[in-house]
């Protein structure tokens, strides 16, 4: 557990952590040792000369004072290490997340990572601040007390010592048997959470079928599974907890019996026996609390394991000696890319000379968007090479590559902030005038005029306060401002109504001027702007050529458009 914690933390915090644990151990030992002084104190008090207790009592008082100082110091150290680690972890996780390839971020990951980075991290780090000290003390104090007992009476001491291997064995066994149940429980929780989201999002349709609440079996089944899993977790933890209690209590009973026997036989004084039994009672409580602390530690451990898994995911390797691309040409050289067990791109070769425009057309799932993602190195290819400016993208530093490429995605995500801030993201150093010019070129000024607050208007989380077309225009302005030599457009106009489409097209036209462009498109109007068209299916180039040429050829490409173009001008109107 601590090893995993140290690995997650990275080694810079390991020393502080070890120091803190050492301090906690010393504190717990001090507590145990201070009890040694109870023996002479009680011997005097229960014997015939109670006044002899005072010097020992003063010594005990001094020991308690020493323990108090140590405890304060170790509490403080625990908290300090806790907060430092928390800050360190946030930074470590944040930096790591930023370096992970975009391909890693599937839709399910968004929720998972947000929980992990907020609550999960805090819970995992809470280990050191809240759980470590009680855990160390629950183990070390009884052990020290047993040592003290051994020093005073070897028979009773040995009997108490017999508990140690049993407690250790039970702890180890519980940890193993519950790990599986915990993992299962987590799996069920995740499954149920997915079903709940599905249930919420599909409400209109579900209601139409009268399937709400328990009548939507998929959800109800998963909720019942959650209960079953939690019952299994209880069943897995209960034997450990009961076993621990049983062991501790048995040892206490043995001490009680043995103590009575020895005292009756007269081989040990009554005061000694009673003191040892008082000490034994002091051992029992911390040991019993172990199962409670153990449960909490397990919770933190599974959070830690999830953090560990993310932190161990390798980002795409950065080149040791980065090469600068020489021009704005693009090339796919026998590229194969697999994703989710499928060949998304299959031995594809293709090149776009600098300044040319390539349109990528094909049915859904043909691998069109993946093509763009490989150019921007969201993923690395499995075979072949993707080159920008004649250089393999893996040999270009991420920064240099991104500086050359502007992407306009189909789904635009805007940050909660003003329009201006969102545009400026394209080139943070841009001047006021440049930002305005980009906005005007993307025909954003009419949007800004309409918004209450204009330029300073907030766009809401994810840009929710703007319509799809308006968001698209912001993203085009962003790309215009970036002024990169390569432009990638991903089905930019598919999600637009005609009014927005016209505006967006104007912006796109400006964006494409003089640049190397690859666009995924399925509006013929967009395609016609390209110098060349490739028709993609199943990750391969099926047809390639000019738009008119391909239409005349009457192959797949022509068939694709045939169903798309209806009798565009109805009889009644033309």
């Amino acid at each position, binding site marked *: 557990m601590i090893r995993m914690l140290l690995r997650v933390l990275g080694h810079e915090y390991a020393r502080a952590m070890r120091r803190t644990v050492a301090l906690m151990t010393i504190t717990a030992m001090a507590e145990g040792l201070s009890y040694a002084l109870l023996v002479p104190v009680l011997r005097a008090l229960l014997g015939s000369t109670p006044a002899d207790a005072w010097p020992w009592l003063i010594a005990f008082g001094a020991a308690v004072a020493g323990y108090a100082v140590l405890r304060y110091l170790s509490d*403080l150290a625990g908290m300090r290490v806790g907060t430092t680690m928390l800050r360190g972890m946030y930074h470590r996780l*944040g930096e790591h997340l930023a370096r992970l390839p975009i391909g890693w971020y599937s839709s399910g990951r968004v929720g998972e990572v947000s929980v992990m980075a907020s609550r999960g991290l805090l819970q995992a780090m809470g280990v050191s601040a809240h759980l470590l000290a009680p855990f160390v003390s629950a183990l070390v104090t009884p052990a020290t007390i047993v040592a003290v007992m051994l020093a005073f009476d070897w028979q009773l001491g040995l009997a108490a010592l017999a508990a140690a291997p049993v407690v250790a064995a039970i702890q180890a066994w519980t940890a193993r048997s519950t790990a599986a149940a915990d993992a299962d429980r987590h799996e069920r929780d995740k499954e149920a959470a997915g079903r709940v989201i599905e249930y919420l999002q599909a409400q209109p349709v579900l*209601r139409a079928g009268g399937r709400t609440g328990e009548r939507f079996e998929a959800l109800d089944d998963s909720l019942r599974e959650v209960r079953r899993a939690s019952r299994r977790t209880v069943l897995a933890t209960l034997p450990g907890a009961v076993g621990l209690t049983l062991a501790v209590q048995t040892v*206490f009973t043995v001490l009680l019996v043995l103590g009575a026997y020895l005292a009756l036989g007269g081989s040990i004084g009554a005061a000694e026996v009673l003191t040892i039994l008082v000490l034994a009672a002091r051992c029992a409580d911390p040991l019993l609390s172990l199962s409670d602390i153990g449960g909490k530690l397990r919770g933190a451990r599974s959070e830690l394991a999830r953090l560990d898994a993310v932190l161990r995911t390798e980002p795409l390797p950065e080149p040791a000696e980065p090469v600068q691309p020489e021009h704005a040409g693009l090339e796919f050289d026998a590229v194969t890319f697999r994703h989710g067990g499928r060949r998304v791109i299959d031995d594809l070769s293709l090149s776009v000379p600098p300044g040319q425009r390539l349109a990528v057309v094909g049915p859904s799932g043909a691998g069109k968007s993946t093509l763009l993602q490989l150019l921007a190195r969201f993923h690395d290819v499995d075979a072949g090479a993707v080159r920008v400016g004649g250089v393999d993208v893996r040999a270009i530093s991420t920064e240099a590559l991104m500086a050359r490429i502007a992407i306009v995605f189909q789904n635009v995500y805007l940050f909660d902030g003003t329009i201006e801030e969102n545009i400026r993201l394209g080139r943070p150093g841009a001047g006021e005038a440049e930002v305005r010019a980009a906005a005007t070129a993307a025909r954003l000024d009419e949007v800004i005029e309409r918004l209450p607050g204009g330029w300073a208007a907030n766009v809401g989380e994810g840009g929710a306060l703007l319509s799809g077309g308006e968001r698209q225009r912001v993203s085009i302005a962003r790309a215009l401002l970036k002024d990169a030599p390569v432009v990638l457009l991903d089905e930019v106009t598919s999600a637009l109504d*005609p009014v927005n489409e016209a505006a967006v097209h104007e912006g796109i036209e400006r964006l494409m001027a003089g640049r190397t462009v690859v666009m995924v498109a399925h509006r*013929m109007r967009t395609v016609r702007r390209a110098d060349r068209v490739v028709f993609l299916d199943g990750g391969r180039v099926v047809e390639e050529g000019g738009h008119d040429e391909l239409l005349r050829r009457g192959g797949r490409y022509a068939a694709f458009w045939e169903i798309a173009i209806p009798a*565009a001008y109805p009889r009644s109107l033309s």
Partner: protein
Amino acid sequence: MTTTGLAQEEDPSPPLLRPYGWSFAGVVLLQVIGAVAGLAPLLAVVELGRALLSPGPVDHGQVWLVVIAGAAGLLVRLLFTAASSGLGHVLDGRVQLALRRRLAERLGRVPIGWFSRRRTGELAKVVGEDVSAVHPFIAHAPGELVSAFVVPLVSLVYLFSVDWRLTLITLIPVVLAVALVPLLMLPARLREQEEYDAAMGRIANAVVEFVQGIAVVKAFGGSERAHRRFLTAADDFVGIFSRWVRGMSAVAAGMQLALSPPFVLLVVLIGGAALITSGGLAPADLLPFLLLGLGLTAPVAALGHGFDDLQAARRAVGRIKDVLDVRSLPEPARPATPLGHRVELRGVRFGYEADREVLRGIDLVLEPGTVTALVGPSGSGKSTLVQLLPRFFDPTHGAVLLGGADLREIDSRELYRLVSFVFQDVRLLRASVADNIALAVPRAGHDDVVRAARLAGIHDRVLELPRGYDTVLGEEAELSGGEAQRISIARALLADTPVLVLDEATAFADPQTEQAVRRALAALAGERTILVIAHRLETVADADTVVMLDDGAIVERGSPAELLARGGRFAAFWQSHRSAVAGDAVPQGDEPR
């Protein structure tokens, strides 16, 4: 402090936990018996001391009796606490399932429009995590809290009977600890607690933004500046967190020290030594204080210990209740039966917020057997208007009538049998293709499902899936956006309702889907009442009536040809679109027709 009491105090209307009252009582009783029995071994040590320390010969029989009693007490404690804990957790599972079912049931009845203003993730969190957070409330709090108070109380009575002076001395640490509690409740501390919660919320938001925007962030360079916002929120949070911890640490350390066993023992021993040396206390009477005295600190420790969890649980219960308290759209007491399928909007006004009307007085009649196309610039209220038909919202003024009956007077199940819709954001369930298509008509036969799929142009694609119509979507296969939309069209075709509302979505993802929509519209025409938000000129041109919406009001209506001839707003709109899509039309000449 029982949980049933809490249910009464927290929840006046439908009790969340009351049905489990007896089970809770059982958990508490078992726990209390077990915990009190746990005192037996300690008392056995005390009695052993009395026997051994008493002057004269030791009574062997009595010693062994005491030892046996102590051992028996331990056994009882083991059995009862284990039973209580097991029962508590089983009960916890039952309560959680019941709560989740109630939430699901409630969420299945709130107005659909209510969802649009909430994040799905947050609601899912209520059903999942928040219900789980109630766990300590149910499984731990009743038994453990009650025994944390009962056991010290029993001990206290016993100790008082032994010696009242030493009992008071033994209470000194508890009093010290309690005296420090107000310092934890200082306004500064409470403010820090609030700041802490707020900062935690900011971190959660920053993370969501960071992760969702990751593609943009990476594409627009500088991963270093990318997560600055997240790191700022994190640093901010850590700062507040450490301030909070620092503010608490001295007081908390003081409390913990006062309650720590060495300190309690020191206090008891000093008091005991003073009393014994002055002859006021028999030496054997010191033992119970050494053994039971430590237990007196339990309530304070339990309060401090379980406090955070209970606070979290209380907040979670609050959020659960908020959801359970959402009012569903009122159902009519005596549902009206619609006569025919004529849809009528009378003076409809609607706004999402009180001061901003999105629809400003709409009067519109949709005749059965006609297609009405709704056109207008974005933001004119088209989407809102069509959402009133399936009663996602109720109008703030005026009424929507179906077959002469106000929608509010129609039973909601009946309504959904009459009105179906195809909207832009298609949600597929992780279920088989057949189930997905038959979602609104659970009893549909396989042939009907296939027929609908064929008509929606998705049949061939389904056959390509690993297990055809039995393929579980999202597990065995993924569909593209366009394919998902065609599934949704198949759903509507299968539902075969007399009224169809269709957002000819801005986002029909590919030509095949656009074709499917047109085929569906053609197939459905006849006696049906169809309202469509039109984005394509051909849909507008084929409609019987065109309604032009602008800024929440109807500005023009009539047949397409009529409106074009009038040369008004619609004609201008039409011309601008015509030029906008002109590019698409050019290849017509090249195509063999």
